[in-house]
Structures are given as structure tokens and as C-alpha cells.
């Protein structure tokens, strides 16, 4: 099968890229290893659409999306993605927490983001349900959250309506060059050919990029989330903590979707299927109860796990590749790709079209990795 662009990966990054490419008139084919669209991190994350707490290198793309794409995304795609722009509190309980939060807030302010430190009184005014132990927070009023299940599938459905071909159950084995350009994608069943190849396959991108001699230094990390039964409406902000005890929000449905960590995320057994560990949900629950005591009687109806593709320096690769013309990389989102996906899709479509990206992605290059003694120079 032949197209203008072959996108590898039908998560929200691949589908957003396919959507914006199709909108420009490209004939796009999306290949997905799973039988299910958006079955990786795209459907398993906490739904944060935030700028605060981000590395300055990926802040421009996050800010671009929140200023220009997220507010009208439901109308653009024709499906409600449940986007709420009601701010993000990143909570602290100790002076050390506040120090961590302030450092991040200062860095983001320097990039032009409206984020500031607030005291316990203002925190309580924004969210009266928080524990008295919270002594401060960083507050970014333009952050928010959306429904990752719906946003991912909305991009897919909108792309499909524009004529994008999706093939599921296709595991990419290798990318092949023709006359020095990436052109052919070989799967376990078939061969696909395109002028451009977009690699957005999460952790699998490392193996696939390796077939044309490019290494993207990442590992996969098991992240776990839970959801409660529907509760009366309490608050609309996105919440996070300096300690990363938990992060989450209340959905339109009323349930709370919350993720968290135990500290063993990188060291869990990997049997090929992401599964919950018995110690994680209890640990997340303790985190939640300590910050939002009122939720202690909320019932948990479901928990799940997923892998994030963690880059060695914590930010993704969004770039063309000089050794492999025709290849565009968009991977290694390190567990915070959902919120920037609309911006990433836009930028990927620009990279394919040979245009200057609409926001600064110069910190997200594929060739930025050097040994520590060289990097320091």
C-alpha cells in the first residue's frame, strides 16, 4: 500500500499527526501494532493539559497548544474531549517541597508562563477540599485537563473521516531506505511505501529507529492509575504534588482519575503486559487521603497500568533526521505527552511539509545526547 506519509503508531501523537497531515491534503496511512487504537499511554494517562512543572525545552509546544489548539479542539474534531482550563495546583507540604516548586515556577516564568507561588490561604480559596497540611503551591491558572480516552479517539475518528487509512494489528519490523531516503515500512504482514515516515510508536520507536541506525535513549516505565465511582462535583483544577504522591482531577462524569507512584516504577517486572502491582494503588490512596481527606470513603472501581517511554533527559524527540531524510521522529514523551499532543501533531505536519515549526522545538532534537563530560562543555 502506498501513501504520501506512513505514520507508525495510532496513539494520540500518531493520530494527531495524521489528522493535521490529512487536513493539509496528504494521503496518510497509519500502522498500529495493537488491535486497538490508542491502547498505550494515550488511553492510560491522567489527562493533564499543563504547562507548569514542564521542562523549559518542551514548554513552548505546551503553551502553543493551550493558547491555540485545546480551547477549540472539541469543535475542530467534532467530538467532546472534555477540556477544562481551570488551572493547576502543584501542592507542597514542607519547605523543601516549596523550594522544588519554586524552582520549576521560576524557570517557567522566565519562559513567559503565568505561574506563581501562593500561600495556604489562597490555596484553600481555590480548592477548599485540600488538607490543612498543605502550606503552599504553585498555581498556573491556564493549565487544565481533558479526557484522554475521548481526545485520542476523537483525533482517530476525525482523521479517518478525512480519509486517513488505519491498519491495526500491523507490527512494524523495519524501515528501509531507497536511494538514501526512508521510504519503505515492512510489517509482519505487508510492505508500505511513502514519501515520509512519521515514527510515533512510543517505546517501540527505539527498536524501529534502530533499523535505520538511529538510537533514541529511552527505557519504559510502568505507571499506574485508578478511578473512583462518580462523586458529587468538588473542584475543576488539575492537582499535582511536589512529592509526586499523586496527580489527577475530577472528570465530567464525576469520577476522580488519579495516578501516582511508589518509587519502583523503573524496576517492575516486565512480562510484556502492563499490570497493576499490589502496592501501588494503596500507596496512591494514602497520597490522596493525605491531601484530600474527604475522598477517604470514595470507592475505587478500577485500576490500570501502562508504560511510558522515558527519555534519558526527560523530554521527547520531535525532529527530522539528517542521516535519514524522509523520517520524522515524535517519541519519548516520558509520561507527559498527552497535553502537548495537539501541538506535536501540528509541528509534525509542518516538519513533513518542510515548514518552520510554529513553536520552538530546538531543545527536542534527536542528536542532543552526549556523554556527560562532553555535554557539560
Amino acid at each position, binding site marked *: 500500500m502506498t501513501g504520501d506519509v506512513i505514520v507508525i503508531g495510532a496513539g494520540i501523537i500518531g493520530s494527531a499527526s495524521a489528522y493535521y497531515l490529512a487536513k493539509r491534503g496528504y494521503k496518510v496511512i497509519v500502522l498500529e501494532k495493537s*488491535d*486497538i*487504537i*490508542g*491502547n498505550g499511554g494515550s*488511553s492510560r494517562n491522567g489527562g493533564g493539559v499543563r504547562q507548569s512543572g514542564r521542562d523549559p525545552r518542551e514548554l513552548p509546544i505546551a503553551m502553543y497548544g493551550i493558547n491555540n489548539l485545546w480551547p477549540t479542539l472539541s469543535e475542530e474534531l467534532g467530538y467532546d474531549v472534555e477540556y477544562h482550563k481551570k488551572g493547576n495546583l502543584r501542592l507542597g507540604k514542607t519547605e523543601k517541597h516549596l523550594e522544588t516548586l519554586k524552582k520549576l515556577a521560576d524557570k517557567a516564568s522566565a519562559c513567559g508562563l503565568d505561574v506563581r507561588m501562593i500561600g495556604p490561604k489562597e490555596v484553600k480559596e481555590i480548592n477548599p477540599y485540600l488538607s490543612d497540611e498543605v502550606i503552599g503551591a504553585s498555581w498556573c491558572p491556564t493549565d487544565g485537563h481533558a479526557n484522554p*480516552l*475521548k481526545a485520542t*479517539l476523537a483525533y*482517530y*475518528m476525525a482523521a*479517518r473521516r478525512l480519509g486517513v*487509512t*488505519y*491498519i*491495526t*494489528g*500491523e507490527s512494524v519490523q523495519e524501515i528501509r531506505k531507497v536511494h538514501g531516503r526512508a521510504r519503505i515500512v515492512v510489517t509482519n*504482514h505487508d510492505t508500505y511505501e511513502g514519501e515520509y515516515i512519521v515514527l510515533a510508536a512510543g517505546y517501540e520507536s527505539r527498536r524501529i529507529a534502530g533499523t535505520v541506525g538511529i538510537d533514541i535513549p529511552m527505557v519504559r516505565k510502568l505507571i499506574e492509575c485508578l478511578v*473512583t*465511582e462518580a462523586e458529587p462535583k468538588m473542584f475543576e483544577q488539575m492537582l499535582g504534588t511536589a512529592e509526586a504522591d499523586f496527580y489527577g482531577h475530577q472528570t465530567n*462524569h464525576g469520577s476522580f482519575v488519579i495516578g501516582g507512584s511508589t518509587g519502583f516504577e523503573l524496576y517492575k517486572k516486565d512480562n510484556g503486559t502492563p499490570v*497493576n502491582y*499490589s*502496592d501501588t*494503588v*494503596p500507596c496512591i*490512596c*494514602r497520597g*490522596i*487521603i*493525605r491531601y484530600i481527606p474527604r*475522598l*477517604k*470513603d*470514595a*470507592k*475505587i*472501581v*478500577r*485500576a*490500570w497500568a501502562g508504560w511510558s517511554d522515558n527519555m534519558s533527559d526527560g523530554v521527547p524527540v520531535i525532529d527530522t533526521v539528517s542521516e535519514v531524510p524522509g523520517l520524522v521522529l515524535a517519541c519519548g514523551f516520558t509520561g507527559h505527552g498527552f497535553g502537548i499532543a495537539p501541538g506535536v501533531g501540528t509541528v509534525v505536519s509542518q516538519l513533513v511539509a518542510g515548514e518552520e515549526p510554529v513553536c520552538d522545538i530546538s531543545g527536542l532534537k534527536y542528536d542532543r545526547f552526549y556523554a556527560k563530560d562532553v555535554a557539560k562543555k
Partner: protein
Amino acid sequence: MNELSNRSRDIGEFVPQPDDDMIVCRCEEVTKGEIRRAVHDGLWTIAEIRRYLRCGMGLCQGQTCAKLVKGIVARELHVSPALLEPATSRSPMRPVEMHVFADETEDTDL
């Protein structure tokens, strides 16, 4: 690869049916018409339908409607229901209060 792999396969137009208002998932009040419409929008697996419409995500976690949903989706796609993988069952087996979950060790200070 099977009949569900190429999401551009022609499954025909959406034709309204008299019982489209019938509620199939009682927990989340999802109707037959919504499920059939979602199939025509491209959601061809039970996992996608569940994530998009929430059928099977309520208190009973699909114990009542899973089979019905599968039948409706399979008919719409003109495939055998056996081809459709059920959605993943997830812990806990029944809803559990957060403070019960949180209290797994004697040392937890809550």
C-alpha cells in the same frame, strides 16, 4: 490481521433502527443507537467503544452488558462475535473504599 484490521473497510451506511433508544448499559445509560453510531464512526473494538461511550465502565464493570454490546458491534461490522476481544477486566473485583485500600500495612500512618 483480520476483518477488523483495515479500518477503512466498507461496513455500509448507518441505518436508524426503531429500538435505537433502548438502554444497553444500565450503569452508564448507553443506548443501542449510540453503540451502533460509534461503530460507524470507526470504533471497531470493545475496548474503544468502552473508552468512548463508557458502556461497561460503571459500577458493574460490564458484567451485565458486555455480551449485549459485543453482539451489537459484531452485527454492525458483519463479523462473528468470537472475533471481538472482550474488554480487559480490571481490579478491584468490586468497588473498594479508598481508606480500605490505603490500610494495607500496619505501619501506614493515616
